[in-house]
Protein backbone atom coordinates (compact mmCIF):
# COMPACT_ATOMS: atom_id res chain seq x y z
CA UNK A 1 0.00 0.00 0.00
CA UNK A 2 2.99 2.30 0.49
CA UNK A 3 5.04 1.34 -2.55
CA UNK A 4 6.77 4.05 -4.60
CA UNK A 5 3.87 3.95 -7.04
CA UNK A 6 1.38 4.58 -4.25
CA UNK A 7 3.51 7.21 -2.51
CA UNK A 8 2.68 9.79 -5.19
CA UNK A 9 -1.02 9.12 -4.66
CA UNK A 10 -0.73 9.55 -0.88
CA UNK A 11 1.24 12.79 -1.20
CA UNK A 12 -0.78 14.51 -3.88
CA UNK A 13 -4.12 13.60 -2.38
CA UNK A 14 -2.97 14.90 1.01
CA UNK A 15 -2.01 18.24 -0.54
CA UNK A 16 -5.34 18.48 -2.35
CA UNK A 17 -7.22 17.57 0.84
CA UNK A 18 -5.50 20.26 2.93
CA UNK A 19 -6.15 23.07 0.46
CA UNK A 20 -9.72 21.83 -0.18
CA UNK A 21 -10.39 21.83 3.55
CA UNK A 22 -9.26 25.45 3.91
CA UNK A 23 -10.78 26.86 0.72
CA UNK A 24 -13.89 24.69 1.15
CA UNK A 25 -14.65 26.27 4.53
CA UNK A 26 -15.08 29.64 2.85
CA UNK A 27 -16.88 28.12 -0.15
CA UNK A 28 -19.56 26.87 2.26
CA UNK A 29 -19.42 29.92 4.53
CA UNK A 30 -19.81 32.33 1.58
CA UNK A 31 -22.49 30.20 -0.12
CA UNK A 32 -20.24 29.77 -3.17
CA UNK A 33 -21.00 26.04 -3.56
CA UNK A 34 -22.48 26.54 -7.00
CA UNK A 35 -19.36 28.39 -8.18
CA UNK A 36 -17.28 25.54 -6.76
CA UNK A 37 -19.28 23.30 -9.06
CA UNK A 38 -19.08 25.63 -12.07
CA UNK A 39 -15.35 26.31 -12.02
CA UNK A 40 -14.22 22.66 -12.21
CA UNK A 41 -16.61 22.26 -15.14
CA UNK A 42 -14.99 25.27 -16.75
CA UNK A 43 -11.64 23.67 -16.11
CA UNK A 44 -12.83 20.51 -17.82
CA UNK A 45 -13.79 22.49 -20.91
CA UNK A 46 -10.36 24.14 -20.82
CA UNK A 47 -8.65 20.78 -20.77
CA UNK A 48 -10.72 19.74 -23.78
CA UNK A 49 -9.65 22.91 -25.60
CA UNK A 50 -6.00 22.33 -24.66
CA UNK A 51 -6.13 18.79 -25.94
CA UNK A 52 -7.58 20.04 -29.25
CA UNK A 53 -4.92 22.74 -29.56
CA UNK A 54 -2.22 20.30 -28.53
CA UNK A 55 -1.03 22.34 -25.54
CA UNK A 56 -0.58 21.36 -21.90
CA UNK A 57 -3.83 20.50 -20.15
CA UNK A 58 -2.79 22.60 -17.13
CA UNK A 59 -2.75 25.74 -19.29
CA UNK A 60 -6.25 25.00 -20.56
CA UNK A 61 -7.42 24.22 -17.03
CA UNK A 62 -6.09 27.41 -15.51
CA UNK A 63 -7.11 29.75 -18.35
CA UNK A 64 -10.69 28.46 -18.39
CA UNK A 65 -11.24 28.30 -14.64
CA UNK A 66 -9.71 31.74 -14.04
CA UNK A 67 -11.78 33.16 -16.91
CA UNK A 68 -14.85 31.48 -15.40
CA UNK A 69 -14.10 33.15 -12.05
CA UNK A 70 -13.77 36.56 -13.73
CA UNK A 71 -17.02 36.14 -15.67
CA UNK A 72 -18.95 34.98 -12.57
CA UNK A 73 -17.58 37.90 -10.52
CA UNK A 74 -18.30 40.38 -13.31
CA UNK A 75 -21.82 39.19 -14.05
CA UNK A 76 -22.72 38.86 -10.36
CA UNK A 77 -22.50 42.62 -10.01
CA UNK A 78 -25.32 43.02 -12.53
CA UNK A 79 -27.50 39.98 -11.97
CA UNK A 80 -28.10 37.34 -9.28
CA UNK A 81 -24.92 35.41 -8.72
CA UNK A 82 -26.55 31.97 -9.05
CA UNK A 83 -27.84 32.95 -12.49
CA UNK A 84 -24.41 34.27 -13.46
CA UNK A 85 -22.82 31.03 -12.26
CA UNK A 86 -25.35 28.89 -14.12
CA UNK A 87 -24.64 30.82 -17.33
CA UNK A 88 -20.93 30.13 -16.92
CA UNK A 89 -21.52 26.40 -16.37
CA UNK A 90 -23.68 26.14 -19.48
CA UNK A 91 -21.23 28.15 -21.58
CA UNK A 92 -18.23 26.16 -20.41
CA UNK A 93 -19.87 22.77 -20.81
CA UNK A 94 -21.03 23.55 -24.33
CA UNK A 95 -17.56 24.81 -25.28
CA UNK A 96 -16.12 21.65 -23.75
CA UNK A 97 -18.37 19.39 -25.80
CA UNK A 98 -17.50 21.35 -28.94
CA UNK A 99 -13.75 20.91 -28.40
CA UNK A 100 -14.28 17.25 -27.54
CA UNK A 101 -16.07 16.69 -30.83
CA UNK A 102 -13.05 18.20 -32.64
CA UNK A 103 -10.52 16.03 -30.90
CA UNK A 104 -11.79 12.49 -30.60
CA UNK A 105 -8.25 11.11 -30.59
CA UNK A 106 -7.36 12.76 -27.30
CA UNK A 107 -10.66 12.25 -25.57
CA UNK A 108 -9.32 9.69 -23.12
CA UNK A 109 -7.13 12.23 -21.36
CA UNK A 110 -10.03 14.61 -21.11
CA UNK A 111 -12.41 12.04 -19.67
CA UNK A 112 -9.86 11.14 -17.04
CA UNK A 113 -10.15 14.77 -15.88
CA UNK A 114 -13.78 14.21 -15.03
CA UNK A 115 -12.87 11.61 -12.43
CA UNK A 116 -9.19 12.24 -11.87
CA UNK A 117 -6.31 9.83 -11.78
CA UNK A 118 -5.10 9.80 -8.24
CA UNK A 119 -3.15 6.61 -8.91
CA UNK A 120 -1.70 7.90 -12.16
CA UNK A 121 0.09 10.98 -10.81
CA UNK A 122 3.76 11.33 -11.70
CA UNK A 123 6.52 12.60 -9.38
CA UNK A 124 6.95 15.80 -11.40
CA UNK A 125 3.35 16.92 -10.77
CA UNK A 126 3.75 17.09 -7.00
CA UNK A 127 5.89 20.23 -6.69
CA UNK A 128 3.68 22.51 -8.86
CA UNK A 129 0.60 21.26 -7.01
CA UNK A 130 2.26 21.97 -3.67
CA UNK A 131 3.28 25.50 -4.72
CA UNK A 132 -0.18 26.44 -6.00
CA UNK A 133 -1.70 25.04 -2.79
CA UNK A 134 0.63 27.06 -0.59
CA UNK A 135 -0.17 30.19 -2.57
CA UNK A 136 -3.94 29.61 -2.25
CA UNK A 137 -3.70 29.08 1.48
CA UNK A 138 -1.51 32.15 1.99
CA UNK A 139 -4.04 34.32 0.16
CA UNK A 140 -6.87 32.86 2.27
CA UNK A 141 -4.90 33.62 5.45
CA UNK A 142 -4.15 37.14 4.22
CA UNK A 143 -7.86 37.79 3.53
CA UNK A 144 -9.11 35.67 6.44
CA UNK A 145 -10.91 38.35 8.46
CA UNK A 146 -12.38 40.12 5.44
CA UNK A 147 -13.58 36.79 3.96
CA UNK A 148 -15.28 35.98 7.25
CA UNK A 149 -16.70 39.47 7.85
CA UNK A 150 -18.13 39.83 4.33
CA UNK A 151 -19.72 36.38 4.57
CA UNK A 152 -21.51 37.27 7.82
CA UNK A 153 -22.67 40.88 7.38
CA UNK A 154 -21.49 42.13 3.96
CA UNK A 155 -23.19 45.54 4.32
CA UNK A 156 -21.48 46.22 7.64
CA UNK A 157 -18.11 45.14 6.25
CA UNK A 158 -18.66 47.45 3.29
CA UNK A 159 -19.46 50.30 5.68
CA UNK A 160 -16.09 49.65 7.35
CA UNK A 161 -14.34 50.15 4.02
CA UNK A 162 -14.05 46.52 2.85
CA UNK A 163 -14.36 46.33 -0.94
CA UNK A 164 -16.94 43.56 -1.46
CA UNK A 165 -16.31 43.18 -5.18
CA UNK A 166 -12.55 42.80 -4.65
CA UNK A 167 -12.95 40.19 -1.90
CA UNK A 168 -15.50 38.24 -3.98
CA UNK A 169 -13.24 38.25 -7.04
CA UNK A 170 -10.12 37.28 -5.10
CA UNK A 171 -11.96 34.37 -3.52
CA UNK A 172 -13.37 33.11 -6.84
CA UNK A 173 -9.85 33.24 -8.30
CA UNK A 174 -8.62 31.15 -5.35
CA UNK A 175 -11.40 28.60 -5.99
CA UNK A 176 -10.37 28.58 -9.67
CA UNK A 177 -6.70 27.97 -8.78
CA UNK A 178 -7.61 25.23 -6.31
CA UNK A 179 -9.69 23.66 -9.05
CA UNK A 180 -6.89 23.84 -11.62
CA UNK A 181 -4.57 22.12 -9.22
CA UNK A 182 -7.01 19.48 -8.00
CA UNK A 183 -8.81 18.47 -11.20
CA UNK A 184 -6.00 16.29 -12.62
CA UNK A 185 -5.81 14.51 -9.25
CA UNK A 186 -9.39 13.91 -8.17
CA UNK A 187 -11.34 15.15 -11.18
CA UNK A 188 -14.09 17.74 -11.53
CA UNK A 189 -16.69 15.63 -9.78
CA UNK A 190 -14.74 14.80 -6.65
CA UNK A 191 -13.09 18.18 -6.08
CA UNK A 192 -16.64 19.42 -5.60
CA UNK A 193 -17.20 16.76 -2.93
CA UNK A 194 -13.89 17.57 -1.22
CA UNK A 195 -14.62 21.29 -1.19
CA UNK A 196 -18.11 20.91 0.29
CA UNK A 197 -18.51 17.82 2.48
CA UNK A 198 -15.64 18.20 5.01
CA UNK A 199 -16.26 21.93 5.43
CA UNK A 200 -20.02 21.53 5.79
CA UNK A 201 -19.52 18.74 8.32
CA UNK A 202 -16.92 20.74 10.28
CA UNK A 203 -19.43 23.57 10.77
CA UNK A 204 -21.64 21.16 12.71
CA UNK A 205 -19.01 20.22 15.26
CA UNK A 206 -17.84 23.62 16.50
CA UNK A 207 -19.02 27.18 17.12
CA UNK A 208 -15.65 28.71 16.25
CA UNK A 209 -14.62 29.54 12.69
CA UNK A 210 -10.89 28.82 13.04
CA UNK A 211 -11.55 25.48 14.74
CA UNK A 212 -14.00 24.65 11.92
CA UNK A 213 -11.24 25.26 9.35
CA UNK A 214 -8.77 22.99 11.16
CA UNK A 215 -11.50 20.37 11.51
CA UNK A 216 -12.42 20.73 7.84
CA UNK A 217 -8.79 20.01 6.87
CA UNK A 218 -8.66 16.97 9.18
CA UNK A 219 -11.90 15.59 7.78
CA UNK A 220 -10.75 16.12 4.18
CA UNK A 221 -7.48 14.30 4.96
CA UNK A 222 -9.39 11.48 6.67
CA UNK A 223 -11.65 11.22 3.62
CA UNK A 224 -8.87 10.91 1.03
CA UNK A 225 -6.65 8.66 3.15
CA UNK A 226 -9.51 6.31 3.97
CA UNK A 227 -10.62 6.33 0.33
CA UNK A 228 -7.18 5.44 -1.03
CA UNK A 229 -6.68 2.69 1.54
CA UNK A 230 -10.15 1.23 1.02
CA UNK A 231 -9.81 1.44 -2.73
CA UNK A 232 -6.47 -0.33 -2.60
CA UNK A 233 -7.82 -3.09 -0.38
CA UNK A 234 -11.16 -3.64 -2.08
CA UNK A 235 -10.34 -2.64 -5.66
CA UNK A 236 -13.50 -0.52 -5.71
CA UNK A 237 -13.01 2.99 -7.16
CA UNK A 238 -11.43 5.62 -4.90
CA UNK A 239 -14.08 8.06 -6.10
CA UNK A 240 -16.82 5.98 -4.55
CA UNK A 241 -15.12 6.08 -1.18
CA UNK A 242 -14.51 9.83 -1.39
CA UNK A 243 -18.21 10.41 -2.03
CA UNK A 244 -19.30 7.88 0.61
CA UNK A 245 -16.89 9.21 3.28
CA UNK A 246 -18.03 12.76 2.52
CA UNK A 247 -21.66 11.75 3.00
CA UNK A 248 -20.86 9.78 6.15
CA UNK A 249 -18.86 12.59 7.76
CA UNK A 250 -21.53 15.10 6.85
CA UNK A 251 -24.25 12.84 8.25
CA UNK A 252 -22.40 12.39 11.53
CA UNK A 253 -21.97 16.16 11.79
CA UNK A 254 -25.69 16.59 11.23
CA UNK A 255 -26.57 13.98 13.82
CA UNK A 256 -24.22 15.67 16.29
CA UNK A 257 -25.97 18.98 15.69
CA UNK A 258 -29.38 17.30 15.81
CA UNK A 259 -28.59 16.17 19.34
CA UNK A 260 -26.92 19.41 20.47
CA UNK A 261 -29.20 21.97 18.82
CA UNK A 262 -32.61 23.29 19.67
CA UNK A 263 -33.07 24.81 16.23
CA UNK A 264 -35.60 23.02 14.01
CA UNK A 265 -34.35 24.52 10.71
CA UNK A 266 -31.08 22.61 10.87
CA UNK A 267 -32.95 19.41 11.68
CA UNK A 268 -35.02 19.56 8.50
CA UNK A 269 -31.95 20.05 6.36
CA UNK A 270 -30.34 16.93 7.82
CA UNK A 271 -32.37 14.33 5.96
CA UNK A 272 -32.19 16.07 2.58
CA UNK A 273 -28.42 16.37 2.80
CA UNK A 274 -27.86 12.77 3.82
CA UNK A 275 -29.98 11.65 0.87
CA UNK A 276 -27.99 13.59 -1.71
CA UNK A 277 -24.73 12.42 -0.22
CA UNK A 278 -25.85 8.81 -0.72
CA UNK A 279 -27.01 9.59 -4.26
CA UNK A 280 -23.58 11.02 -5.05
CA UNK A 281 -21.84 7.97 -3.62
CA UNK A 282 -24.09 5.57 -5.56
CA UNK A 283 -23.43 7.50 -8.74
CA UNK A 284 -19.65 7.49 -8.38
CA UNK A 285 -19.82 3.74 -7.74
CA UNK A 286 -21.32 3.35 -11.20
CA UNK A 287 -19.26 5.90 -13.07
CA UNK A 288 -15.81 5.78 -11.60
CA UNK A 289 -13.19 3.57 -13.08
CA UNK A 290 -12.29 0.78 -10.67
CA UNK A 291 -8.67 0.94 -9.58
CA UNK A 292 -7.75 -2.23 -11.46
CA UNK A 293 -9.18 -0.94 -14.70
CA UNK A 294 -7.41 2.42 -14.49
CA UNK A 295 -4.12 0.62 -14.01
CA UNK A 296 -4.83 -1.41 -17.09
CA UNK A 297 -4.63 1.30 -19.74
CA UNK A 298 -5.80 -1.11 -22.44
CA UNK A 299 -9.20 -1.04 -20.79
CA UNK A 300 -9.56 2.72 -20.78
CA UNK A 301 -11.88 2.88 -23.77
CA UNK A 302 -14.27 0.46 -22.18
CA UNK A 303 -14.25 2.51 -19.02
CA UNK A 304 -14.80 5.73 -20.93
CA UNK A 305 -17.71 4.20 -22.77
CA UNK A 306 -19.33 3.26 -19.51
CA UNK A 307 -18.81 6.71 -18.09
CA UNK A 308 -20.16 8.72 -20.94
CA UNK A 309 -23.91 8.37 -20.51
CA UNK A 310 -23.55 8.95 -16.79
CA UNK A 311 -22.11 12.45 -17.02
CA UNK A 312 -25.48 13.92 -17.90
CA UNK A 313 -27.00 12.25 -14.90
CA UNK A 314 -24.20 13.73 -12.82
CA UNK A 315 -25.21 17.22 -13.86
CA UNK A 316 -28.78 16.55 -12.78
CA UNK A 317 -27.70 15.22 -9.40
CA UNK A 318 -25.52 18.28 -8.83
CA UNK A 319 -28.42 20.52 -9.72
CA UNK A 320 -30.57 18.71 -7.16
CA UNK A 321 -27.79 19.13 -4.60
CA UNK A 322 -27.51 22.80 -5.37
CA UNK A 323 -31.22 23.33 -4.95
CA UNK A 324 -31.37 21.39 -1.70
CA UNK A 325 -28.34 23.19 -0.31
CA UNK A 326 -30.07 26.50 -0.97
CA UNK A 327 -33.23 25.61 0.88
Amino acid at each position, binding site marked *: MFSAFMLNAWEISSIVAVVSGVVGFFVVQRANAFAAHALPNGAFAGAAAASYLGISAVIGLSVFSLAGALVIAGLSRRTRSDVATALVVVMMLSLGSLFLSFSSGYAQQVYSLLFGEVFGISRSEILPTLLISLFCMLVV*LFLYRQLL*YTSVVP*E*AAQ*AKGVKLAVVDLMFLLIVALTTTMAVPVVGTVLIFTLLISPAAAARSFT*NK*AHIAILLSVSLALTTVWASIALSYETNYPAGFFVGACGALIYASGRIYRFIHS*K*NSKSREATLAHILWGLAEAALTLNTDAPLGEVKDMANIDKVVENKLPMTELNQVVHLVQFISSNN
Partner: protein
Amino acid sequence: MSNIEQNPVKLLELEGVSISRSGREVLHDVTFDIYKGKFIGLIGTNGSGKTTLLRAILGIVSPSSGHIRFPSSSKQGSSNNIGYVPQKIDFDPDMPLRARDLVALGLDGNRLGISKRKKSDKLLVDSLLEQVGGTEFANSRVGELSGGEQQRIMIAHALISKPELILLDEPLANLDLRSQVEIVTLVSNLAKDSNITVLISTHDMNPLLPVMDRIIYIANGKVASGEVSEVVTTESLSSLYGHHVEVVNLKGRILVVPEFEEGGFNFLRGIPGNEDH
Protein backbone atom coordinates in the same frame (compact mmCIF):
# COMPACT_ATOMS: atom_id res chain seq x y z
CA MET B 1 -23.03 66.29 27.92
CA SER B 2 -24.71 69.32 29.38
CA ASN B 3 -23.02 71.67 26.93
CA ILE B 4 -24.78 70.08 23.93
CA GLU B 5 -27.87 72.14 24.50
CA GLN B 6 -25.98 75.43 24.76
CA ASN B 7 -23.53 74.81 21.96
CA PRO B 8 -24.77 72.27 19.43
CA VAL B 9 -22.06 70.73 17.21
CA LYS B 10 -23.06 69.98 13.66
CA LEU B 11 -22.01 66.38 12.94
CA LEU B 12 -23.43 65.81 9.49
CA GLU B 13 -24.70 68.08 6.77
CA LEU B 14 -26.68 67.05 3.68
CA GLU B 15 -27.17 69.73 1.09
CA GLY B 16 -29.32 69.29 -2.02
CA VAL B 17 -28.56 65.57 -2.19
CA SER B 18 -30.17 63.67 -5.08
CA ILE B 19 -29.51 59.98 -5.61
CA SER B 20 -30.41 57.87 -8.61
CA ARG B 21 -30.47 54.08 -8.62
CA SER B 22 -30.58 52.35 -12.02
CA GLY B 23 -31.93 55.42 -13.80
CA ARG B 24 -34.64 56.26 -11.26
CA GLU B 25 -34.27 59.18 -8.87
CA VAL B 26 -34.79 57.73 -5.40
CA LEU B 27 -34.06 60.88 -3.43
CA HIS B 28 -34.52 64.42 -4.69
CA ASP B 29 -32.88 67.55 -3.28
CA VAL B 30 -32.56 66.28 0.28
CA THR B 31 -31.24 68.82 2.76
CA PHE B 32 -30.89 68.42 6.52
CA ASP B 33 -28.34 68.72 9.34
CA ILE B 34 -27.66 66.30 12.14
CA TYR B 35 -26.37 67.61 15.47
CA LYS B 36 -24.15 65.71 17.84
CA GLY B 37 -25.80 63.66 20.56
CA LYS B 38 -29.29 63.67 19.05
CA PHE B 39 -31.58 60.69 18.59
CA ILE B 40 -33.09 61.00 15.13
CA GLY B 41 -35.80 58.88 13.56
CA LEU B 42 -35.71 58.34 9.79
CA ILE B 43 -39.31 57.54 8.92
CA GLY B 44 -40.65 56.31 5.60
CA THR B 45 -42.32 53.33 3.99
CA ASN B 46 -40.49 50.34 2.58
CA GLY B 47 -38.88 51.39 -0.67
CA SER B 48 -38.97 55.11 0.15
CA GLY B 49 -35.17 55.41 0.04
CA LYS B 50 -34.24 55.11 3.72
CA THR B 51 -31.57 52.49 3.09
CA THR B 52 -30.19 54.44 0.12
CA LEU B 53 -29.93 57.55 2.29
CA LEU B 54 -28.08 55.62 5.02
CA ARG B 55 -25.74 54.05 2.45
CA ALA B 56 -25.03 57.50 1.04
CA ILE B 57 -24.08 58.75 4.52
CA LEU B 58 -21.78 55.73 4.85
CA GLY B 59 -20.13 56.67 1.57
CA ILE B 60 -21.14 53.41 -0.17
CA VAL B 61 -23.51 55.18 -2.59
CA SER B 62 -22.49 58.48 -4.17
CA PRO B 63 -25.08 61.21 -4.69
CA SER B 64 -25.68 62.29 -8.29
CA SER B 65 -25.74 65.87 -7.04
CA GLY B 66 -25.37 67.70 -3.74
CA HIS B 67 -22.98 67.22 -0.84
CA ILE B 68 -22.72 65.07 2.27
CA ARG B 69 -20.26 66.56 4.78
CA PHE B 70 -18.99 65.79 8.23
CA PRO B 71 -18.06 69.34 9.35
CA SER B 72 -16.55 68.32 12.70
CA SER B 73 -14.50 65.43 11.34
CA SER B 74 -11.09 65.71 9.77
CA LYS B 75 -11.69 62.53 7.75
CA GLN B 76 -14.03 63.71 5.00
CA GLY B 77 -16.45 61.08 3.77
CA SER B 78 -14.63 58.41 5.69
CA SER B 79 -16.97 55.86 7.19
CA ASN B 80 -14.55 54.68 9.84
CA ASN B 81 -16.28 56.54 12.63
CA ILE B 82 -19.83 55.44 11.78
CA GLY B 83 -21.41 52.35 13.30
CA TYR B 84 -23.86 50.53 11.04
CA VAL B 85 -26.57 47.98 11.72
CA PRO B 86 -27.87 46.83 8.32
CA GLN B 87 -31.45 45.76 7.77
CA LYS B 88 -32.82 42.23 7.32
CA ILE B 89 -30.20 40.38 9.24
CA ASP B 90 -30.68 36.68 8.58
CA PHE B 91 -27.87 34.56 9.97
CA ASP B 92 -27.33 30.99 8.80
CA PRO B 93 -27.98 28.77 11.88
CA ASP B 94 -25.22 26.42 10.66
CA MET B 95 -22.62 29.17 10.70
CA PRO B 96 -19.83 28.49 13.21
CA LEU B 97 -19.74 31.98 14.70
CA ARG B 98 -20.47 32.92 18.28
CA ALA B 99 -22.13 36.16 19.31
CA ARG B 100 -18.82 37.38 20.77
CA ASP B 101 -17.03 36.64 17.46
CA LEU B 102 -19.48 38.84 15.59
CA VAL B 103 -18.93 41.69 18.06
CA ALA B 104 -15.17 41.30 17.63
CA LEU B 105 -15.51 41.51 13.83
CA GLY B 106 -16.79 45.06 14.37
CA LEU B 107 -13.36 45.80 15.79
CA ASP B 108 -11.04 44.12 13.29
CA GLY B 109 -13.15 42.44 10.56
CA ASN B 110 -11.93 44.93 7.97
CA ARG B 111 -8.24 44.20 8.58
CA LEU B 112 -5.96 41.99 6.54
CA GLY B 113 -3.86 39.11 7.77
CA ILE B 114 -4.37 37.21 10.99
CA SER B 115 -3.28 38.00 14.52
CA LYS B 116 -4.19 36.81 17.95
CA ARG B 117 -6.65 39.16 19.60
CA LYS B 118 -5.20 41.18 22.44
CA LYS B 119 -6.42 40.79 26.01
CA SER B 120 -7.69 44.39 25.93
CA ASP B 121 -9.78 43.63 22.82
CA LYS B 122 -11.34 40.61 24.52
CA LEU B 123 -12.21 42.75 27.55
CA LEU B 124 -13.73 45.36 25.24
CA VAL B 125 -15.90 42.68 23.58
CA ASP B 126 -17.00 41.48 27.03
CA SER B 127 -17.88 45.00 28.11
CA LEU B 128 -19.91 45.69 24.95
CA LEU B 129 -21.75 42.38 25.38
CA GLU B 130 -22.55 43.39 28.94
CA GLN B 131 -23.78 46.83 27.85
CA VAL B 132 -26.28 45.32 25.40
CA GLY B 133 -27.33 42.63 27.87
CA GLY B 134 -25.80 39.86 25.79
CA THR B 135 -23.43 38.25 28.29
CA GLU B 136 -25.57 35.17 28.77
CA PHE B 137 -25.68 34.28 25.07
CA ALA B 138 -22.16 35.47 24.23
CA ASN B 139 -20.99 31.94 23.42
CA SER B 140 -24.07 30.87 21.44
CA ARG B 141 -24.16 30.71 17.65
CA VAL B 142 -25.50 33.98 16.25
CA GLY B 143 -27.76 32.05 13.87
CA GLU B 144 -29.57 30.42 16.78
CA LEU B 145 -30.37 33.62 18.67
CA SER B 146 -33.78 35.28 18.59
CA GLY B 147 -34.35 38.37 16.44
CA GLY B 148 -34.09 40.71 19.44
CA GLU B 149 -30.89 39.02 20.65
CA GLN B 150 -29.36 39.30 17.16
CA GLN B 151 -30.17 43.02 17.13
CA ARG B 152 -28.43 43.47 20.49
CA ILE B 153 -25.34 41.71 19.15
CA MET B 154 -25.40 43.83 15.99
CA ILE B 155 -25.65 46.98 18.14
CA ALA B 156 -22.63 45.86 20.20
CA HIS B 157 -20.82 45.09 16.91
CA ALA B 158 -21.59 48.60 15.63
CA LEU B 159 -20.57 50.36 18.87
CA ILE B 160 -17.31 48.54 19.55
CA SER B 161 -15.31 50.81 17.24
CA LYS B 162 -16.45 53.79 19.38
CA PRO B 163 -18.23 55.69 16.60
CA GLU B 164 -19.61 59.23 16.95
CA LEU B 165 -22.62 58.30 14.83
CA ILE B 166 -24.56 55.05 14.62
CA LEU B 167 -26.97 54.21 11.79
CA LEU B 168 -29.59 51.52 12.36
CA ASP B 169 -31.62 50.36 9.38
CA GLU B 170 -35.07 49.02 10.34
CA PRO B 171 -33.82 47.40 13.56
CA LEU B 172 -37.41 47.03 14.81
CA ALA B 173 -38.78 45.13 11.82
CA ASN B 174 -39.81 41.57 12.67
CA LEU B 175 -39.58 42.21 16.41
CA ASP B 176 -42.48 41.82 18.82
CA LEU B 177 -43.68 44.94 20.62
CA ARG B 178 -41.79 44.20 23.82
CA SER B 179 -38.48 43.63 22.00
CA GLN B 180 -39.06 46.85 20.02
CA VAL B 181 -39.36 48.85 23.22
CA GLU B 182 -36.31 47.10 24.69
CA ILE B 183 -34.14 47.84 21.63
CA VAL B 184 -35.22 51.50 21.45
CA THR B 185 -34.57 52.00 25.18
CA LEU B 186 -31.21 50.23 24.94
CA VAL B 187 -30.00 52.31 21.98
CA SER B 188 -31.23 55.53 23.57
CA ASN B 189 -29.50 54.81 26.90
CA LEU B 190 -26.21 53.70 25.32
CA ALA B 191 -26.19 56.75 23.07
CA LYS B 192 -26.81 59.13 26.00
CA ASP B 193 -24.08 57.48 28.08
CA SER B 194 -21.43 57.84 25.37
CA ASN B 195 -22.78 60.97 23.63
CA ILE B 196 -23.35 59.03 20.40
CA THR B 197 -25.61 60.41 17.69
CA VAL B 198 -28.28 57.94 16.54
CA LEU B 199 -30.01 57.81 13.17
CA ILE B 200 -32.55 55.00 13.19
CA SER B 201 -34.82 54.14 10.27
CA THR B 202 -38.25 52.60 10.70
CA HIS B 203 -41.60 52.53 8.92
CA ASP B 204 -43.49 52.99 12.18
CA MET B 205 -42.49 56.05 14.20
CA ASN B 206 -44.52 55.17 17.29
CA PRO B 207 -41.95 53.03 19.13
CA LEU B 208 -39.49 55.95 18.79
CA LEU B 209 -41.80 58.71 20.08
CA PRO B 210 -40.63 58.57 23.74
CA VAL B 211 -36.93 59.05 22.88
CA MET B 212 -36.79 60.75 19.48
CA ASP B 213 -35.29 64.29 19.45
CA ARG B 214 -35.82 64.96 15.78
CA ILE B 215 -37.49 63.30 12.83
CA ILE B 216 -36.57 62.98 9.17
CA TYR B 217 -39.66 61.98 7.22
CA ILE B 218 -39.18 60.58 3.70
CA ALA B 219 -41.99 60.38 1.13
CA ASN B 220 -42.01 60.69 -2.65
CA GLY B 221 -38.22 60.95 -2.68
CA LYS B 222 -38.42 64.16 -0.66
CA VAL B 223 -37.61 64.82 2.96
CA ALA B 224 -39.06 66.93 5.78
CA SER B 225 -36.99 67.25 8.94
CA GLY B 226 -37.29 68.93 12.31
CA GLU B 227 -38.94 68.37 15.66
CA VAL B 228 -41.68 65.74 15.66
CA SER B 229 -44.25 68.46 16.48
CA GLU B 230 -43.17 70.48 13.42
CA VAL B 231 -42.92 67.66 10.87
CA VAL B 232 -45.69 65.28 11.80
CA THR B 233 -48.57 67.67 11.13
CA THR B 234 -51.42 67.46 8.67
CA GLU B 235 -50.08 70.43 6.65
CA SER B 236 -46.44 69.38 6.49
CA LEU B 237 -47.07 65.71 5.61
CA SER B 238 -49.83 66.57 3.12
CA SER B 239 -47.42 68.77 1.20
CA LEU B 240 -44.78 66.02 1.29
CA TYR B 241 -47.13 63.31 0.03
CA GLY B 242 -48.68 65.65 -2.52
CA HIS B 243 -52.19 64.82 -1.37
CA HIS B 244 -54.17 65.31 1.81
CA VAL B 245 -53.24 63.17 4.79
CA GLU B 246 -54.54 63.63 8.29
CA VAL B 247 -52.30 63.30 11.36
CA VAL B 248 -54.28 61.81 14.22
CA ASN B 249 -53.12 61.47 17.80
CA LEU B 250 -54.80 58.42 19.26
CA LYS B 251 -54.00 57.80 22.94
CA GLY B 252 -50.39 58.92 22.51
CA ARG B 253 -49.99 56.98 19.29
CA ILE B 254 -49.55 59.01 16.10
CA LEU B 255 -51.40 57.74 13.05
CA VAL B 256 -51.06 59.17 9.57
CA VAL B 257 -54.40 58.68 7.83
CA PRO B 258 -55.17 59.44 4.19
CA GLU B 259 -58.35 61.19 3.22
CA PHE B 260 -60.74 58.94 1.36
CA GLU B 261 -61.07 60.37 -2.10
CA GLU B 262 -61.58 58.52 -5.33
CA GLY B 263 -59.39 55.44 -5.23
CA GLY B 264 -58.56 56.53 -1.73
CA PHE B 265 -57.68 53.07 -0.56
CA ASN B 266 -54.52 53.30 -2.63
CA PHE B 267 -53.29 55.98 -0.27
CA LEU B 268 -53.51 53.54 2.61
CA ARG B 269 -50.68 51.60 1.14
CA GLY B 270 -47.36 53.26 1.62
CA ILE B 271 -48.22 55.33 4.63
CA PRO B 272 -46.32 54.54 7.80
CA GLY B 273 -48.37 53.07 10.57
CA ASN B 274 -51.02 51.74 8.25
CA GLU B 275 -49.38 48.68 6.84
CA ASP B 276 -49.10 46.28 9.69
CA HIS B 277 -51.95 47.35 11.95
